[in-house]
Every structure is written in C-alpha cells, then in structure tokens.
C-alpha cells in the first residue's frame, strides 16, 4: 500500500528537487534510460538528467555526453563472475578504469547513454545493480568486508545485509528521501563500517537478557561528512539481529516523513538529529517499531580504518585472507580480470572491496598463500605496501568531477611516493585528499587531511591544499582540525615530510599520529607547519618535489 507523502500537503516551501521528485519518482527514470539510449544524449531533459542519479549515473566533467556510474556492492562482497562483469563493462565502455570508492562501491567513467541498456543487463545477469547507488535514497551499504571469515566479528552479517537490502533498496516506500542516505552495518569490533560518519549505523554490541548473553547491535544516527561534518549519536537501545530490518525501516521512515525538504543543504538526517537529539529520536522510533531493550555493552574496541593489507588467518582453520593495496583505489579492467582469475585459482572466487579503497582475496588455503604472493599482479597490488602508499585515500578529483577544484589521485600518488622514498615509519599515517569541500575523500577522518583550492598569484594558477590534522573514528572519534597556511601543491610532500619527521622523533611508544597531535597540541603542530613551509619555500627540495 502506498504511503502518504506528508510533506506534499504543502509544497510552498519545498525545494525544486522535491517538486521534481513529486512529479516523477527517481526510480521511474530507469525505464526512460532505455528510451534515451535510442534517442541519444541530447534528448535527455534537464529534470531527467537530475533523476538519472537513481539509476546510479551522473554526468561527468565536462558534461559532454559521458557519464560516471556507481555500482552498489554491499559490504564489498563480490564473486569472480561479478568481478569479471565489472571488468568487462570497464573494458568495453569505460576506457579500462575502475575506481573503488570509500563506500566499497565501484565507479566507472566515460560511459555513454547508449551503453546503459547493455550495462544494466550485464550487471543484472550477475546480481549487481547501479540503481540507487546515487540519488536521494538509501545508497550502497558499508559493512564488514570480512563478513563470514573474520576472527574479529561477533557474527556473520552477510545474510542480514542482504535481508536489509531487500527491505530497503528499490522499495518505493524509500525511494524519495529528503537527501542521500547512508547505512553501515558491521559486527567487526574494529569499526570497519565507519559507524560515526553514516546516517544510520549498526555496530556490534551484547546484552544480558533473561540471564543469557545476546549478540546484537547498537544504533547510531545522524552522521555525515560533506561541508558540515557531524558524528552520529548513539541511541539508548539494543537491537537483536532479527530486529535490525525493523529498526532500519523505522529510522528510514522517520527520515522520510520528518526530514527537512526545504533546503538541499539542510536535508541530511544529521540536521534532524541535531534538532531532536537522541532521546526524542528514540522515542519516535519506538512509536514506529515498538519497545526496544536499553543499550547493552559496546563491543567496538578500536578502529582499523578499513585496512586489511597483508596475509591474515581467517576464523576458519587453514584459510587466510590476503589484503591487497590499491593505490588511491584505481585498478584497470585488465587487473580486475586478473583478480577474478586469482580468486578462482587460489580461493573460492570471492573478492572483497574495502572502504579504504583496497581489495581482499579471501578463502586462500594456507598452503597456497606463498604461490599467490608470487603472482605478477601482486607486485603492483601488493599486500605489503609502503606505509604512505598503503594508507592513502583520494576522491575522484577534477579529472572527472564537476565540483572538484583540484586534481587529487595523481597528486596523492606523488605525495605518498615522495614520503615513502624519504621516511621509514613503523606506524600507519592515513592521508586523505579531497578536491573540494564535499568530502568524498573523507578528509575529516584522516590523520592528515588535504583539501584542494585553486590559487592564482603573479606566478600563475596552481593547485594548493589546506592541511588538517588529528582525525579518527572509533573510541575517541573526532574530526581533524585545519591548520593555518595553504600549501602549494608541489610543496605539500616536503612540508608533510617535516611534520611527519617531527612526529617520528617526538612520539611516545606506539603513539599514532592523531594521538600525537592531540597530546602535543595544535599550537605546537601549527608552529612546526609554519617552520616547514618557510624552510621548504626556499629549499632545493622544491625543485625535486616538482620533478616528481
């Protein structure tokens, strides 16, 4: 039965996109894609161009008829047939590029509208879809890429995530939300799902009920990054696994019916949460789904930032997973074909994508691990990356994105190559880069975040970056903080080198970069940055860095 669109009773304050969604649901554009594929790019109306997001496609820069497509991959779990289908689409239509996103999805570029029917068909044939990977609807679910094989998970969430997707995705009850809507569900005790930056998250928890310990979840609502970052707040409730779908539907219904639709910039669930607070939100949730037990015991003990590189034992005896580093998340179609072959040859065909933009080959019998490590592909997609290369996150940047101000992926490669060639470190430092304030590169949660700006001086126009330090999620979650002093893109690497060497010299045993920043204080870090900028500006390394 169709629900009542309560916000449609008075349309006078709805933004233009809301009117457009009321006129025609976003999901209805999918049928039109087949028509546009015959008529051509020029036939697409401006309104339908906006609605194409629900089909998972956006116009890429410079809006000349090429599209980006995002494919949903829940918890990052793929099989080799799906990987080959993705690789084939990239090879045949996407100029051989495959980008892994910070939500474990996959993105293609260079697609044309006439390619879409065939691409939709290829995805559907292997059980994948781009539908609702974009738009004002529930996006791909972030989760535990190790689900089912993880020694650090309280339960296997694979089936639960599938069940949740069946209830939420392509369901017209939830295809018209006020804004994008991001769900995370993970039972890994190291917060693989980045719970605090999603609209709705389920994190591992336990509670003694009627004398028995029950494994379940805690619920976090209202997180998000973008230009107004906000950490999700935990509700005072405990959710049994069998109640996850009910609770998710309840939270999503609240967002749909009470979320703000007047301004696009004030529509994410975080704004409603900021207004209501967790107590009122929970009260409304209980009205919809019934009573829930109060909060139990949080079982998250830390944050691994979604990194799994290396060879690690699974919870199944005799099996290992091999985490591969994909520098800034980009592989070629040929490499993805090869990964599918390796997954079949050494494992059971399973491939996992990570929100750290990396890849995991699971279910490798221990006796086959050495042979896998000798495969030529693993020399580039190495399980043992250098420290900076292995912890680098990048958004798409102005190569394809209409909103990005600077290039990002090549810049990040040059920065991390430079740092890896000059600093040996035994602790990870996570560097993220955004090409604009919209945070697809999640720079707010980085140890060191870079945000691009375009600078014009007497010497011409150049990319430059603001530097932010001290971000982390998990216990003690906080966003990083901007330092004063914008840095010429070509000088970022030598400036960071000095900052990181200071950390290396002054850190306590086992102290991570973000912990160090907050122990010594921002003023000290700022003074170091000022000194580094002044020193680098006149040094010979400037020329060396520019040559990189």
């Amino acid at each position, binding site marked *: 039965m169709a629900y009542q669109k309560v916000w449609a009773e008075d349309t006078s304050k709805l933004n233009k996109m809301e009117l457009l969604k009321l006129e025609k649901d976003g999901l209805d554009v999918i049928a039109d894609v087949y028509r546009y594929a015959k008529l051509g790019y020029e036939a697409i109306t401006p309104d339908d161009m906006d609605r194409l997001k629900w089909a998972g496609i956006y116009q890429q820069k410079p809006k000349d008829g090429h599209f980006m497509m995002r494919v949903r991959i829940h918890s990052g779990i793929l099989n080799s047939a799906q990987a080959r289908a993705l690789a084939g689409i990239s090879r045949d239509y996407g100029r051989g590029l495959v980008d892994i996103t910070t939500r474990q999805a996959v993105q293609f570029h260079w697609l044309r509208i006439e390619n879409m029917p065939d691409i939709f068909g290829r995805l559907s044939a292997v059980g994948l879809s781009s539908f609702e990977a974009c738009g004002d609807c529930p996006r791909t679910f972030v989760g535990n890429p190790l689900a089912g094989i993880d020694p650090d998970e309280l339960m296997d969430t694979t089936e639960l995530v599938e069940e949740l997707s069946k209830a939420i995705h392509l369901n017209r009850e939830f295809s018209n939300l006020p804004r994008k809507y991001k769900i995370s569900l993970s039972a890994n005790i190291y917060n693989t799902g980045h719970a605090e930056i999603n609209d709705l998250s389920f994190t591992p928890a336990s509670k003694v009920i009627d004398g028995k310990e029950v494994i379940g979840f805690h619920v976090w609502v209202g997180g998000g990054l973008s*230009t107004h970052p906000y950490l999700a707040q935990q509700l005072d409730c405990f959710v049994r696994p069998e109640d996850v779908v009910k609770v998710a539907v309840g939270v999503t219904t609240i967002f749909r019916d009470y979320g703000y639709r007047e301004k696009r910039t004030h529509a994410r669930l975080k704004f409603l949460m900021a207004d209501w607070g967790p107590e009122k939100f929970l009260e409304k949730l209980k009205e919809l789904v019934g009573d829930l037990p109060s909060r139990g015991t949080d079982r998250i003990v830390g944050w691994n930032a979604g990194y799994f590189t290396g060879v690690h034992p699974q919870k199944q005896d005799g099996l290992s997973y091999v985490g591969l580093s994909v520098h800034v998340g980009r592989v070629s179609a040929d490499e993805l074909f090869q990964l599918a072959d390796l997954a079949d040859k050494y494992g059971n065909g399973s491939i996992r994508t990570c929100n750290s933009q990396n890849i995991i080959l699971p279910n490798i019998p221990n006796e086959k691990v050495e042979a896998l490590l000798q495969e030529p592909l693993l020399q580039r997609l190495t399980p043992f990356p250098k420290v900076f290369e292995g912890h680098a996150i990048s958004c798409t940047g102005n190569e394809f994105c209409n909103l990005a101000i600077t290039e990002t992926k090549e810049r990040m490669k040059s920065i991390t190559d430079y740092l890896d060639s000059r600093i040996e470190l035994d602790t990870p430092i996570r560097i993220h880069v955004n090409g604009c*304030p919209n945070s697809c590169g999640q720079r707010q949660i980085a140890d060191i975040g870079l945000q691009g700006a375009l600078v*014009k001086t007497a010497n011409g126009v150049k990319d430059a970056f603001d530097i932010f330090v001290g971000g982390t999620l998990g216990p003690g979650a906080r966003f990083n903080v901007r330092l004063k002093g914008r840095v010429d893109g070509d000088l970022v690497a030598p400036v960071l080198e000095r900052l990181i060497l200071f950390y290396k010299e002054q850190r306590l045993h086992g102290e991570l970069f973000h912990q160090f920043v907050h122990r010594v204080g921002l003023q000290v870090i700022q003074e170091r940055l000022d000194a580094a900028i002044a020193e680098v500006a006149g040094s010979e390394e400037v020329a060396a860095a520019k040559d990189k």
Partner: protein
Amino acid sequence: MFLYRIECQVKGKDLEHVIVLAESDLHAFDCAERLVKQQSLAPVDILETVILEKKPAKLGAGYVILP
C-alpha cells in the same frame, strides 16, 4: 555556469571574500579580481586569489561566509 566562493588577498588589507558567477575557473578569477578592484578608490595590489569552492549555479544557491 558555477557559483564560486573565492578569497582575495590584497596588499595591506584584510582577506576579501568574493562570490561570483562564472563559466570557468579562469573566468571566476578574472571576475573576482575585477570586483575587488572596483571596490577600492585607490589602486589595489592583489597578492593572491583563491577558489575555495564551486557549485552549480541554481536559483537559491549561495554560501554562508564565516568570519
């Protein structure tokens, strides 16, 4: 067409915040510097102009300028 958020550093003055509609990044730089120069009776020496953000130009689009 994009709505740009720009900072302009003029010699001897506080940072100027400029919002301009422009077709391209270079066009935005030109527009911003022209606007800054128009604001001053005396000749101005622009040291640096920075594009911080751009968004599609739509009715109602804008920026909140924080101090």
